[in-house]
């Protein structure tokens, strides 16, 4: 693990997402307390922390998925490219096209593999014609590192794939709409180690084009794939910084306790 960190190249990228004084309430529960964070472009940022610490909730704030939960209220500012996404003028539907999301459990639609990937481009009218759409689907599946496995059976149902393939299909589906930010909520928690390795490799490649934010319970995974790490605890953002620093030389005692396994 030491070697890995030594090799890590940390470039200073331009700011993509910045959150200021974000508070989230579920009914009376104060789930996120006063979170400030700056997420860079073309970087993998990992959110770690014990269960129920609010990392998934915060992730869902970034594409306003929390709007679909009735009791959830969000306060504070979240800016993407300097634009407040909670502004009245922002259409959450448009926002989600720009900020894609991959979920904990693979959730392919009960459609063919092709239709799964073509879903987003069709909705947003990204393809001029059928050939164009074929092209988009192929490119997305290649980026999802699953093209070689499914190219002969694009008409087969997406639900018939294995768990790891389903998750890569979901990543391809999210990539197909050309998002700028990709949010991943524990994308490997339902996968075996081999599928996990494939997805992690994929995440590293996606970094070339996107800003990736990943929630994970595995500290090894955070150390392997991310350049920046944020540690959440009980709704607070405890520490945020270079992944190497967080894992080798954390400033906050709570972070140290968590990564050494004493809490969480």
């Amino acid at each position, binding site marked *: 693990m030491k070697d890995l960190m030594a090799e890590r190249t940390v470039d200073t990228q331009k700011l993509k997402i910045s959150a200021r004084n974000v508070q989230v309430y579920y009914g009376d529960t104060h789930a996120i307390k006063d979170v400030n964070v700056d997420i860079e472009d073309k970087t993998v940022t990992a959110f770690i922390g014990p269960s129920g610490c609010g990392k998934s909730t915060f992730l869902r704030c970034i594409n306003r*998925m929390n709007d*679909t939960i009735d009791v959830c209220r969000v306060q504070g500012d979240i800016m993407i490219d300097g634009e407040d996404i909670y502004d009245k003028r922002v259409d959450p539907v*448009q926002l*989600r096209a720009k900020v894609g999301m991959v979920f904990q459990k693979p*959730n392919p639609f*009960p*459609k063919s593999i092709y239709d799964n990937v073509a879903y987003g481009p069709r*909705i947003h009218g990204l393809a001029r014609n059928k050939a164009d759409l074929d092209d988009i689907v192929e490119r997305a599946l290649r980026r999802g590192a699953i093209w070689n496995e499914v190219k002969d059976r694009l008409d087969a149902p997406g639900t018939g794939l294995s768990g790891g393939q389903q998750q890569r299909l979901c990543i391809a589906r999210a990539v197909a709409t050309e998002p700028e930010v990709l949010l991943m909520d524990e994308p490997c928690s339902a996968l075996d180690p081999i599928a996990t390795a494939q997805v992690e490799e994929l995440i590293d490649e996606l970094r070339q084009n996107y800003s990736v934010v990943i929630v994970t319970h595995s500290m090894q995974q955070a150390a392997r794939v991310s350049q920046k790490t944020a540690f959440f605890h009980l709704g607070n953002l405890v520490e945020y910084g270079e992944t190497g620093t967080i894992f080798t030389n954390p400033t906050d005692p709570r972070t140290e306790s968590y990564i050494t396994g004493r809490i969480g």
Partner: protein
Amino acid sequence: MSDLFNGLIGGSAAALMVIVVLGLSALGFYMARSRAMASGNGDRRNLHSLPNYYGWNAAMLTAVPALGVLVIWLLAQPMMIDNAVFKTIPDSAIAEGSSRGLVMSDVRRLADGLDVIIQRGVMDAEQVTTLDAGTTDLRATLAAEGVALGSAVEQPVLDAAQMYRAQSSTGRFWMVALVTVIALAGFVLSLRVTNADFRARNMVEKGILTLLILSASIAILTTVGIVLSMLFESINFFRLHSWTDFFFGSTWAPNFRGDSDLSILPLLWGTLYISIIALLVAVPIGLFSAIYLSEYAGPKLRSAAKPLLEILAGIPTIVYGLFALLTVGPALVNIFGRGEQGLLGVEWMSGATSVLTAGLVMGIMLIPFVSSLSDDIINAVPQAMRDGSLGLGATHSETIRQVVLPAALPGIVGAILLAASRAIGETMIVVLGAGAIAKISANPLEAMTTITTRIVSQLTGDTNFASPETLVAFALGLTLFVLTLGLNVIALYIVRKYREQYD
């Protein structure tokens, strides 16, 4: 001996036996429990099962076999006595135009009547056994006590009735004896096996399993019985009437002179036509309301609207029939009929009963059925599907149209097929709303009739179960049954296949 016994408990022997057996089993419960406790030296930890299990075991062994024999005896005894008495009635006692069966029912009524006059003290048991039809006007005596007889009592009938009474009382005596012995045997046996090592818990478990299996088999056997009875009567029908006319003829015109045209096709056409109109009404409205309730409505509205829809499902179908006859039918006539005075100024519809009337109202009846089934199915689509679609920037309605509904489609198709089989079997609405004219026509404003209404009309009033005009009802019923069974099987198959997808 048996006379004395009958004098004591009379006709309520069965009720009394039930009380005695239940009392004995309650006693068994407490005795077995305390016996078990005693054998465990008063500490329940020394027992294999909790003390109550020993009690239940004893109660079960005492009551169940005894009550089972009682029930079987009560069912079998009248049949056996009927058979025995039946043979003794001489042919001379059967009047012109009457039948053995009618005389037999007179015998039974007379026997019951004699019991009544003994109970009320009009005569004592001795007088009754020595009655003579020639010297006593039994009909008048019985009429005074509220028992009406069809004709004056003749000696052979009286003899048969006396024999009936004698055999019944003997039978009752043996029944009481047998049931008591079995109950006591169960009681003693269960107490003897009760000790600390006896696995009472497992015995009770077996008893419960038996009860469950019994209930399940009763439900299944009843279905088989219904099908068989329909099948036998249908076979009788096809002996009297050609099956080609029934299935392929084009006219339904029963008359009681014989030579009726009894073809199912006009009725089947009416049934299907009305059902299709009903589904055209019910499926869009039901489905859209289900989508609204499950996807858009807030929890408050939903909790108010769902019970309201279910009230619609609880309205008796005869009330829908009245609605068709009194409201929808005349309203349709106002639109499509009455010539110059009508809304459209046309004369297309003459009476309130029509395919459209019945179809519309039946559609309204099916709305809650379609909507509540579809609602459940839409709710069963995992939230992850919706999240996935919303996360890609789809709107709510795009998500519903392109992800939720396709995922729920097999289940919704199943719900529609179930609704269709209800529409096909529906009776009261079509009796009142569709009319009674059997014909094959494409005009929805004409009166037509359905299989179910014809079954009703063929079997109501004076019926003679030897004529094809009556027996055709069973052939119709069987066809209907096969039709709806087929739809149900397909629907359940589809619904089940769909369920497996997310489990």
